[in-house]
Structure formats: C-alpha cells, structure tokens
C-alpha cells in the first residue's frame, strides 16, 4: 500500500503572499466580531501570565485576583535566579540539549530526506508509512526499554542520553520534512554538478544543502520545539535535580514548597516560552509547508 497522499492542488503555501483580492461582501462586521472574540480568547491567558509574573507574591495569589496589577515588581524574575531553585541549571540544560538535538537531528534527517527524495517512487510509499507509523508509537511504552538501555550504558542523567532519546524520535518526521523541501530543488542542477565531477555526497553538501537552508532551519526549529516541550524523557531518564530540564524541573519544584508561588511560576513560564515564540515566528511561513509537505505533496 502506498501512501502517496496526493494532491492538494499545487499550493502557494506562503501564508502572506496570496495575491491581493477584492473583499467579499461577507458581513465585514461578522469578520471583525469573530476575529476580535478569538483575539481575546488567545491573548487573555498570555496577558494573565505576563501580568501575574509582575505582581508581588501576595497579590499574585490573592483570592480576589486583580485584573490590573496594583504594584509592578521584577522580584519574581530576580528570585528565579537568586533562590534555592536551580532555575538557571534547568534553563541551561534545556538550551544545550535542545540545540544539540536540533543540529544532530537535522544532519541525519537531511541525509535521509535526500535519499528519500531522490530514491524513486517505490521508496516514497514505504517511507511515508514508516514515518507515519513511528509517529504513532506509544513513546511512553518505549521509554521503559529505552530507560533500561541507557541504564546499562550508564547514560542516565547525561546530556548524551537525553540527546539520543530526543533525536531518535525527531528523525523520522525530520526526514519527512527535509524530503519535502528537497523535492523542491530541481534535479537538473544536480545533473550539472555531476557532469562537473562531484561525488554524490559532494553534490549533497555543495549543491543541495546550500539550496535548502530555509528547510534546514525550519526542521531545526521543529526539532527544537519538540525537544523543548518534552516532559516524558527528562522525567524518566534524568533523576538528578540539577541535571533536569525546564518542564520536569519546574513541575517538580513548583508542586512542592513553592506550590502557591504563582508569581514565580508565571515568571518561569514566560522565560520558558520566549525562545519558542521567537523561533516559531522566524520560520512560521515555511513551518506549514514542512509539516504538511510529506503528507500532502506526495512525490
């Protein structure tokens, strides 16, 4: 069975670039109301996070919450880095493991994506299925054997152990995304390079890679986001508190002694969110294409 999940009509996928069209006489006011409502729904939680993080402890946990902060303070942020909470460690651990995973996963995904892309029709069908199937695996079940594996290899509580776990599950989808991007590069260019005497790997490194930089960046951001979000792996593969990453670190710290310190938790949450929000908006346009290309575009 081949899953060449075909044709979305040839999409011009850049979100911004649709040609200027005349407005539909759809009730303009209807559109405005819908958009306004959803803006409130979207922004309210974010506003609440930001404003709570700037409130003094007492106001943040007041039983009659204040919608506008009465007093503004940076204390919650100072405390994250000054108190007994190893927030700095969590942050560094998250950044290091996410960056390394993104780089490693992109290198391997590019190799795989390139061979998927140029490997012909038959391979395409099979890989689509394999990739889709790997997405379905109950990670929570696989984490048991992975835990035992890393235990035997003495890789628990190490960056390397986390990176191995993160990248392995990022690679299938990463390869799928890279395939989609590489599909967009005309083969003729490669032919020309081959005539000039480049090896297959040479062509990949000197011709294909430079031409797929947006794809590389998008895939890297995708892996970075997934890694940054991962709670399950560090929770099980890391047992030492100072080696922990942000998600389990924060979850464990703020459920114990700091249980009601919502000001601090919201400050930590905001810092945790910023890298992802920035990264996402840098690649927002090509992200859609990357995520759906493998599924929608077929060959």
């Amino acid at each position, binding site marked *: *069975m081949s*899953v060449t*999940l*075909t044709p*979305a009509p*040839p*999409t011009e996928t850049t*979100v911004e670039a*649709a040609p200027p*069209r005349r407005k*539909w006489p759809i009730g303009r006011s209807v559109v405005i109301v819908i*958009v306004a409502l*959803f803006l409130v729904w*979207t922004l309210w*939680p*974010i506003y*609440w*996070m930001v404003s709570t993080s700037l409130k003094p402890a007492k106001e943040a*946990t007041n039983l009659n*919450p204040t919608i506008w902060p009465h007093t503004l303070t940076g204390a919650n942020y100072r405390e994250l880095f000054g108190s007994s909470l190893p927030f700095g460690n969590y942050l560094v651990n998250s950044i290091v493991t996410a960056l390394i995973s993104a780089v490693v996963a992109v290198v*391997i*995904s590019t190799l*795989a994506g*390139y*061979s998927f892309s140029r*490997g012909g029709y038959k391979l395409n069908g099979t890989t689509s299925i394999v990739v*889709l199937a*790997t997405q*379905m695996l*109950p990670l*929570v*079940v*696989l*984490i*048991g*054997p992975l835990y*035992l594996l890393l235990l035997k290899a003495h890789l628990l509580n190490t960056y390397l152990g986390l990176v191995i776990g993160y990248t*392995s*599950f990022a690679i299938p989808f990463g390869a799928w995304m890279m395939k989609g991007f590489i599909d967009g590069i005309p083969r003729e260019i490669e032919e020309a390079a081959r005539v000039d005497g480049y090896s*297959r790997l040479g062509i*990949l490194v000197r011709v294909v890679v430079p031409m797929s930089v947006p794809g590389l960046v998008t895939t890297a951001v995708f892996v970075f986001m997934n890694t940054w*979000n*991962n*709670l*399950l792996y560090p929770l099980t593969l890391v047992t030492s508190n100072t080696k922990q990453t942000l*998600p389990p670190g924060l*979850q464990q710290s*703020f459920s114990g002694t700091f249980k009601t310190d919502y000001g601090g938790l*919201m400050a930590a*949450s905001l810092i*945790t969110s910023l890298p*992802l*929000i920035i*990264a*996402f908006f840098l690649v927002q346009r090509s*992200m859609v294409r990357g*995520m*759906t290309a493998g*599924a*929608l575009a077929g060959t």
Partner: protein
Amino acid sequence: MTLPALLILALVIGYPIVRAVIISFYHYPLLNPQHNFIGADNYRRLVDDPVFWQSLQNTAIYTGVSVVGAMLMGLVLALATENLQGPWRFFRGVLLTPWAVPVIVVAFLFQFMFEDTGGITNDLLLRLHIIDSAIPWLSSSQWSLAAVIIANIWSQAPFFLLIFTAALGGVPVEVTEAARIDRASTWSMIALIKLPYLRSAAVVGALLMIIQNFNNFPLIWAMTEGGPAYSSTTLVIYVYRLAFTSFNLGYASAIGVVWLVLLLMISAAFIRVLRGKTS
C-alpha cells in the same frame, strides 16, 4: 545515505518496540531481574481492568473533542482572516501564538487560571454572573477532563489555522473569480468552493493531531496527573503510571501494543478516505 538514520532508528525505536512486544508477554517488574513468561495473561487482565476501559474512553473523548474543537476553530479563523489586508494581517500572527507556547507552560497557565478559589476563570464567570458558584475545574471528577480539553484546544487551534490558511491559498483564483461572476453567495462560496479544497488538509491535519493527542503526556500530567481518581487519565497517563509508579512494565507494554494497533487502524481508515476521494 539513509544508513545513519536507519541505524539510529533500529537501535532506538526498532529495538524498544520489539522489546515492548516481547515484554508484554512477561511478568516484568522494572528493575527486578526476575521475569516470568506468562503468555497472554497481561492481555487477559486488560479485558477486565475497569481503569483501562476508562482510560480508553477518556482518550477517545479527549482526542475527539480536542481535534474537532480545534479544527472548527481553525477553520472559522482561516476563513475569517483570509482577506485581511496589510497591517491587519498582523492579527493572524497573534492568533497563532498559542501554538508556540510550550505545552508545559499551557499546563501551568491553565492550572493557575482554573484554581477553584482565586482562579481568574471562576472569578470572571462569577463577576459576569454566568455561574452562581465556583466550578471545581481541576478538583472534581466531573470537570477535570473538560478543563484539560479547553487548555488543549487553546493550544492546538492555531495549528489548524495555519494549515487551512495554507490550503486556502491553493484555491485557484480562476475558480473563485468564476464563482464571483456567477454571483455565488458568500456561504455557497465557502461551502461549495472552498471547503472541498480544504479536504485533504483537514484529513491530514486531523490524523497528525489524533496521533499527537494519543501521545500528549505533558499537558495532562502537569495539570491533573490524571486525577481526581482516574477522571482525566488517558492511556498515556495510565501506561506511565503502570510503568514508573507500579513498575509493571509487562502490563504497560501490553496496553501499548493495543494502542499501536488502534492507531494503525485509525490511520488506515483516514488514508483510505483521503485516497478514495482523490483517485
């Protein structure tokens, strides 16, 4: 060149999955060298395990409501923002923000907003006289799953906005022009012309999100840990508890195998729908 990828996949995915299938036929306490082959006992136990059935039901509700809710929201937004011009486009960017907010932060944030007393959600609903008494969002079995789903929809609707926006960009201008010349009404324009073009985006997006929500551990774990009682326990939470709190890897693996089979069947159905239409 596929080799490095294949090697790593074999080691870190292939090996655990084969291991998981084998383990599912054993009594297999984590960290204990004594493992006994018990045949299909883990699978037999599963049939009579009320918690398993409740988790399965919760998973279906959680996944179904989240995906349908997020998809409808994304669809409405994509259609509403399609013709935004110039600086107004900025709003679409804003509407996408939740997708970039880390899931763990979504969990913290909604947990905070859903506090029984002092939580802003109850506070606002009370002030606006929408409810008469505080709703115990996360502390009652009745509401916990709903609260988690609301947070999840907030976080995932932007994904559908993204893919529907992209798909709308693929509707050929000639088609919409022709319809406009024929004076098609706005609604028939949407229903008869645009929606069919969104079909494959919808199918693929829904499939990706169903798969993702089956595996969605951080949101529920950080918000409720599956409680109170088992009211918000989905399969992923139950399996995690079995494996790492009860250390019963054998039984956990058996559930994992059932889960994989379920998802494979769902995907096969989706792919059939997709191919049936296009070929």
